[in-house]
């Protein structure tokens, strides 16, 4: 979780999403409340890659039933969800 620690969870995820799904475009922007679903930022495969990435970098186990918009659909939701998981470890 080196990058996650250095940058903070949200910024690290933002970096991962921009590099992987917005092709690292220079002017790529993603706001903390942008819906990945509505904006078409991440597709079905992307969400699985993102899940694996979070599991690896944050050391948490994500159950498939938890991959829902309430937990995953914006950077803010993701940060809250990961923090909840980290605290309950």
């Amino acid at each position, binding site marked *: 979780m080196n990058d996650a620690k250095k940058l903070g969870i949200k910024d690290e995820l933002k970096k991962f999403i921009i590099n992987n799904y917005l092709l690292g475009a220079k002017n790529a922007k993603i706001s903390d409340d942008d819906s990945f*679903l509505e*904006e078409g930022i*991440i*597709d079905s495969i992307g969400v*699985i*890659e993102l899940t694996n990435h979070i599991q690896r970098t944050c050391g948490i186990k994500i159950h*498939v039933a938890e*991959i*829902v918009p309430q937990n995953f659909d914006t950077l803010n939701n993701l940060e809250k969800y990961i923090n909840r998981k980290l605290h309950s470890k």
Partner: protein
Amino acid sequence: MTDSLHGMIQRSAKRSPRAIALVEAGAPSRAFTYSEFGALVDAFARDLIKRGLRKAERVGILARNSIEWAAFYLAVSKAGGISVPLNYTLQVSDLAEEARDCGIAALYSDKSLSKKAHKLAGRVSSIRFVVNCAPEADSHKGVKFPKVKEGDPASIIYTAGTTRKPLGVVLTHKNLLSNSRAVSEYSGLSRRDRTCCVLPFYYIYGLSLLLSNLSAGASVIIDNRFMYPNLIADGIKRYRATGFAGVPSHYAILLYRTALRKKKLPDLRYFMQAGDAMPPRLILTLAKAFPRKKIYLMYGQTEAGPRISYLSPDKVRDKPDSVGSAIPGAKVRVVDESGDDCGLKRAGEILVASSGVMKGYWNNPVETKKAVKGGWLHTGDIAFRDGEGDLFIVGREKNFLKVAGRRISPLEIERIAEDDPSVLEAACVGAKDKLSGQKTKLFVSPVPGKKIDANRMMKACKEKLPPYMVPSKIVIMESLPKSSLGKINRKELESI
């Protein structure tokens, strides 16, 4: 009687006005009856005429699946135009190439793609106006609609050519309607059906699903939430879907990443599979998980409108690697290089003749002549037939590789990888090689929770394949990259 896409919807609206035509899954969900949907089609069509759309002008649709997408598509037909469903995941420069190729005169977009649509309109001088929202239901009453004949072009679908420049496939009203009705016939679609559609409508498979369900008076459940596959699995149950249609990666995700297998789905009647070769073991896993559901394995091509063949569901468990025989009303041949019919189990090119076969490629008589000869569409795909006349595809034209002067089908190599129970998906692509010009590289992803033994797989390849076909490298990935249609993105793999 002259048949047209909008005529088909008018008939369904007249027959069962209160039946549900389309549902948008989500929170909140939306639903339109056939009567409401027909009124929306009319409103869009009147608006197009009022804005000055002329007969046979091309109209682009740059939007995600929605009730409005479907209504606007049929409205273009009613207004006498030719719709051009566009792949919204493409870059503006690629979209502009397609828009210029067929001279798009007007464009429809939804809110989330409005910026992209206006950028596109700014780059393509033929685009006169952009429609962003649905007009008032009773606006512009009294507008006169042009007469549309069944042989008139209804849609231009750009094929995602992997090695050549995109080509615009021109499909007439007759092409699309006859093909949709054949699908309805063999899958037994009726007014009682509700089909869950996760495929984009700009993709011919998604469009065919939309039209075949509407022509049968069935309901289409639009679910754009595949990013959260569990919501799709829940949605199938919640909306009491009677059918689900997908490409292989949809099934791999639903079976291995969601609780779909554990769900009791009493309303679900069938699964449809097309778009790419599905690993036989994945088909058998689906069949085992849902022993009482029908599975339709289908084969097609945009140029054929699109469906060419399907395997009868009662044969799926015995022949999961077959795509069956010709759909109702179509004729299929397998021919050798001199054009003679191949005997049993001898591989040759698949040709198809049906009322679904395209009028041609837009503005491209040279390519049209190469593809359609004497009423037969030359698919470029290679298959053989068994004693029951069922087709087994051994290679697809666009995927063939040339290695050491020999033409090889990656499918043969992929099937060996897929025999390994730890493999979920496999794709073999070409990689540049100084000696042989091109060598093969095999990419595989594991079934969740399993580990792939690359050495064991390489050994199996060496045992079963001639030396020139043995992959030079096996690369294990968590999951294989996919295109916006859910198909394995071979171009991306080539660049790795």
